[in-house]
């Protein structure tokens, strides 16, 4: 956890972080081996502190999800990690080289130490079995010794943690609202008490009120259980509120990584500035976003939209 003070002391800060880090990614390259090869993640290095919330922002196609999948070893051919390392600093054991994990080891590692909340909870749950069966499945696979009643108790417990009535355990996914399904996904990711949770756009499909409820839930749980979060989204304003640090990704590269305050107040990279400008402020002044001319109070900058293509890289 970093301090909330905007004053940065880079050296001591990074040392402290290295000592208390849970995940280190070094010079990671991921290439989709198609014709021509697509270099989706380029030389990405980052350190995730214990208990830290790291935001990963960027627009679609910039490699956010590919990076998350590579960290969790979920990438499939034609995606291939061509270079770099991912090290997991286990709380109760030696460091793990994630890229070298094989079959049974990998299976034991996933979800138990690092879990993931997938994009689009609507589609990530199995529609033909009850939610309980899907939670149970995780427990029977990872903790085969667990008794049925213990599993039942644990499922109830995680549901209560995320604020869903345990009575809904026997529901099927279609019987739950979008917000509840998202909470179920988070409950599932919490089942084994992981040290890191990767959340890939967990709230994009939800409306703001439900989204706020879930973010609050994530913060509360992190405080109680002390896991770290990599939070992937394109919604920069949301990250500015939520994260300790934010990494901005562009075309597979992390172009800037800094505390939320630094990113907002002193963005260094032009792309960061562009991304910030893409979100008009709710209460503040109008930024690059001026709809000019149409009404008298709004014609301060008439030529801002003379080139709408300027925003479109393609």
């Amino acid at each position: 956890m970093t301090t909330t003070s905007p004053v940065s002391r880079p050296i001591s800060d990074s040392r402290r972080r290295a000592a208390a880090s849970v995940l280190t990614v070094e010079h990671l390259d991921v290439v989709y081996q198609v014709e021509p090869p697509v270099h989706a993640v380029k030389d990405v290095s980052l350190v995730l502190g214990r208990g830290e919330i790291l935001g990963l922002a960027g627009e679609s196609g910039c490699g956010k999800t590919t990076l998350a999948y590579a960290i969790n070893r979920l990438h499939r051919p034609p995606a291939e990690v061509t270079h770099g390392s991912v090290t997991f600093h286990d709380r109760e054991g030696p460091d793990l080289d994630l890229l070298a994990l094989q079959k049974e080891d990998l299976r034991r590692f996933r979800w138990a130490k690092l879990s993931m909340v997938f994009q689009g909870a609507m589609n990530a749950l199995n529609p033909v079995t009850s939610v309980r069966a899907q939670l149970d499945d995780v427990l029977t696979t990872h903790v085969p010794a667990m008794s049925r009643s213990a599993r039942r108790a644990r499922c109830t417990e995680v549901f209560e943690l995320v604020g869903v009535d345990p009575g809904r355990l026997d529901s099927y996914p279609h019987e739950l609202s979008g917000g509840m399904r998202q909470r179920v996904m988070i409950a599932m990711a919490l089942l084994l008490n992981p040290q890191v949770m990767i959340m890939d756009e967990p709230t994009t499909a939800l409306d703001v009120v439900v989204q706020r409820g879930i973010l609050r839930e994530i913060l509360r749980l992190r405080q109680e259980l002390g896991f770290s979060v990599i939070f992937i989204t394109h919604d920069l304003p949301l990250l500015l509120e939520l994260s300790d640090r934010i990494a901005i990704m562009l075309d597979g590269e992390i172009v800037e990584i800094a505390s939320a305050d630094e990113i907002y107040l002193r963005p260094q990279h032009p792309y960061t500035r562009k991304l910030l400008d893409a979100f008009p402020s709710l209460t503040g002044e109008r930024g690059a976003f001026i709809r000019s001319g149409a009404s008298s109070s709004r014609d301060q900058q008439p030529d801002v939209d003379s080139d709408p293509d300027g925003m479109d890289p393609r």
Partner: protein
Amino acid sequence: MTTLEVKNLVKDFSIRSGWHRSTLRAVDDVSFTLVPGRTVALVGESGSGKSTVARMIARLERPTAGEIVATAPDGRQVANRRFRDHVQMVFQDPFASLNPFHTIEHHLARPLRLHGPAKSRAEVEALVEELLARVNLSADSIAYRRPHELSGGQRQRVAIARALAPGAQVIIADEPVSMLDVSIRLGVLNLLARLQREDNLAVLYITHDLATARHFSDNILVMYRGRVVERGPADEVILHPKHPYTQLLAAAAPNPERRGRSHLTVSGSIEPVSDGPREARADSGCNFQDRCAFAMDACAEVPPDFAVGDDHFAKCWLYPGDAGAPARERIRGSSA
């Protein structure tokens, strides 16, 4: 210039679950007017009835009650047959709203032929080129491509050009940028604003994004469970929300001005109480009372629109009669 008036619009859907039948009032007594050159934003959470209003205006859905009247520049009511010459819609998903089988040229030429502004082949060609140029696409490289060859932003611009093709004066934009990449959203919105200025269009902008609603529109209507609970000038509604629901929305929207998480960890009264599907509750009073921190006995009755400012109305019993200052102070103090 066409003006579109929506009067007391109501839409009921009937729901069946097993043998049980019930009606859901998706839109309840919604009225507003779209005038040339002005943008009205319709905001609200998913399921609040925003899109149903849009679909009824575009005549994709038949209203249960109420009227949608378009008035042509000559002061006469637009006939049903000609309605779509005047009113066109831009859909949310540019990946689904264009036919993958047809070229871009086809998408634009068809409305030109069907709605009649163009007669000869050469005329159609010239108009297609002009339409594409107006949305900043070059006819040479785009006209004979198919939708899958274009990016999301390009597709949405084609969809906007298509809406303009019949010479429409009223544009219904249903979440026109929510499926687009963040970095191109403003470009598309600004394009829409420019076209609006050039053609003096009346625009209904439907969105759940309060920030763009504020910057992109003149007036905002806030919908909750089918009713317009607050309406007023854009800045007023967002910066000084009066209805508890609008206050909840404004407080929940991410706002980088409030960096740091203190307000996130502080537990407030803004949690949704019920997350489940809503029931038909047409006659049971204010439909926000079950989530409202200020719920009182009066809420058992549906509140009328109370004036809370200049051209600013809220459907809430907190403001009976007029913009009562004490009530306003109280509510703002506790939501801060």
